[in-house]
């Protein structure tokens, strides 16, 4: 048989009156209320609550310690451990970005540079943080491991200009990353 008949639960007369369920509900909500006020709500510790309920009072208390590994903050550019800027301005991230937040002006690596083998590097790299939706597509698309989602989330631009992160700012936020990309090393 393709279907199964499920019997409706029988509702007793007491349940039909609904008063018992009502009172039970009122007791439960009251319990929550009292526990919140005395600051003993359930799973308050795990959620890092401060004071009433499980709420963390944000600017005073921060989630930072509890941030999971996979947390996606704002995107940043990183340099390799050898100090080379990893981005080769291939513009893949610019094209994949669903919010069109990234604007790259590609340029050449000067011939006398140690890394002139790389040929290209961004002259300017801007991410408009007012457009960015923190999706992480740029990180996925990047063939050079140059752009990463950081753990930072505290961005409070006071005007639209301040909302745009330029190359210097992105590198400053990103810092250096260890390992991984070795293909441009001199001996190869």
């Amino acid at each position: 048989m393709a279907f199964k008949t499920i019997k409706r639960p029988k509702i007793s007369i007491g349940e039909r009156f609904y008063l018992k369920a009502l009172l039970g509900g009122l007791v439960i909500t009251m319990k929550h209320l009292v526990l919140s006020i005395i600051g003993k709500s359930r799973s308050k510790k795990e959620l890092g609550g401060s004071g009433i309920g499980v709420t963390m009072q944000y600017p005073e208390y921060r989630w930072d310690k509890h941030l999971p590994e996979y947390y996606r903050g704002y995107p940043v550019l990183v340099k390799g451990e050898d100090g080379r800027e990893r981005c080769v301005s291939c513009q893949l991230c610019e094209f994949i970005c669903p919010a069109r937040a990234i604007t790259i002006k590609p340029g050449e690596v000067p011939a006398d540079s140690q890394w002139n083998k790389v040929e290209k590097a961004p002259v300017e790299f801007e991410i408009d943080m007012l457009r960015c939706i923190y999706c992480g597509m740029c990180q996925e698309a990047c063939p050079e491991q140059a752009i990463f989602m950081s753990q930072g989330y505290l961005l409070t631009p006071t005007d639209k200009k301040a909302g745009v992160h330029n190359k210097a700012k992105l590198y400053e936020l990103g810092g250096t990353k260890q390992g991984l990309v070795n293909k441009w090393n001199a001996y190869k």
Partner: protein
Amino acid sequence: MIDSILSFCDSVLSNQYWFFIITLLIKLVICFAITIAFIPISVLIERRVASFIQDRVGPNRVGIPATIFKRFGMKADLPFVKALDYFGLPHDGRIANICRYFRLDKDIPLLGLLQPAVDGGKLFLKQDFTPPFVRRFYFWVAPMLVLAPPLMTAAVIPFAGDLETPYGNINMVVANLSIGPLWIFAISSLSVYGLVLAGWSSNSKFPLIGGIRSSAQMISYEISMGLSIIPLLMIYSELNLSNIVQYQADNGWLLLPFWGEGLTVERWVLLIPIVISFIIFLTSVFAETNRTPFDMSECETDLVGGYHTEYSSMKFAQFFMGEYAAMIVGSSLVITLFLGGWSIGFGIDGWLLDNCGNWISTILQLIFYVLKLAAFAFFFVWVRWTVPRFRYDQVMKLGWLVFFELAVINIFITAAILYFIK
């Protein structure tokens, strides 16, 4: 000078008509102040209790930002630092840290008590948008029709005991009608016009459904509401709310007959119909005021926003205030009929009158009345955040098939008890 003023006041108050007018004005102010002030208070209760129930904090951020001192020309950046220096305390000592914990360095906290005021200000400043497709006149009239009836009905509810002055007896009710409950039912059912007109004039389908639902619901529950208090009127043999409360003060609240005549067998047997009446009446008040679990007319899961979908700014706020005002008047009616109105209870009223004088007892009664109202506002909020919304057919079934019959049967039970048990 002062003597002449006093004698002038004396002569004015001795005049019966002036005395009446002046006391009436004072009573009006008190009555309206209670009702109007309770709207933001119950909004605050609503938001805070709701958030406590959901393990949140609720509005607690409204305070006076300390930066305001700088804006008004203070040189040093924060008065907090200045104050620490003044007392010679280290900037990161224990006391400073405790103050920081309570955010005293950032603002002067008011525990979020200012939140309703700020909300009101926000509603004033919002764009008042009238959609082009509405019936303009009715669209404008509807919010007023919702807000006015509850404020009118508040007039017949006594908020304290009588006050005896050398010039005469002041009855602490704006309009001492001998048809109190009937007046309330007559006027409060008018607010259904506001909802229906809002729904219809919005010229849009969801508000229309909301308006129609609310009219059906309010009319149905009006019946059980009216029938459920008939037993009470039989017990009181009185329709004047002041006298009803006075009776309860002397002989025990209807639901708690613990003193005076309330200790007779008859009163205890009468508790059975009274409790039934209480449940029906309370539920009907919920339904009448369109509060969850009965807010069919604005149930956002299937009607967007119900009858006020197209409203914005202050016109929306009027609906909002109307709902809360209706809730307050409804709860004051429950208090007046079942829980002794302004009376402090347990025979304390009489004791106070004898030992502490008339003024003190009246003021205490007023305070007690306000406290009872606050408790009831809490109860409304508590129920709202506990019980899920009913289905529309369930609401109608409950009203017509359960409460209506129950209320009618209840009348006969009461009559029988009153007749046989003496």
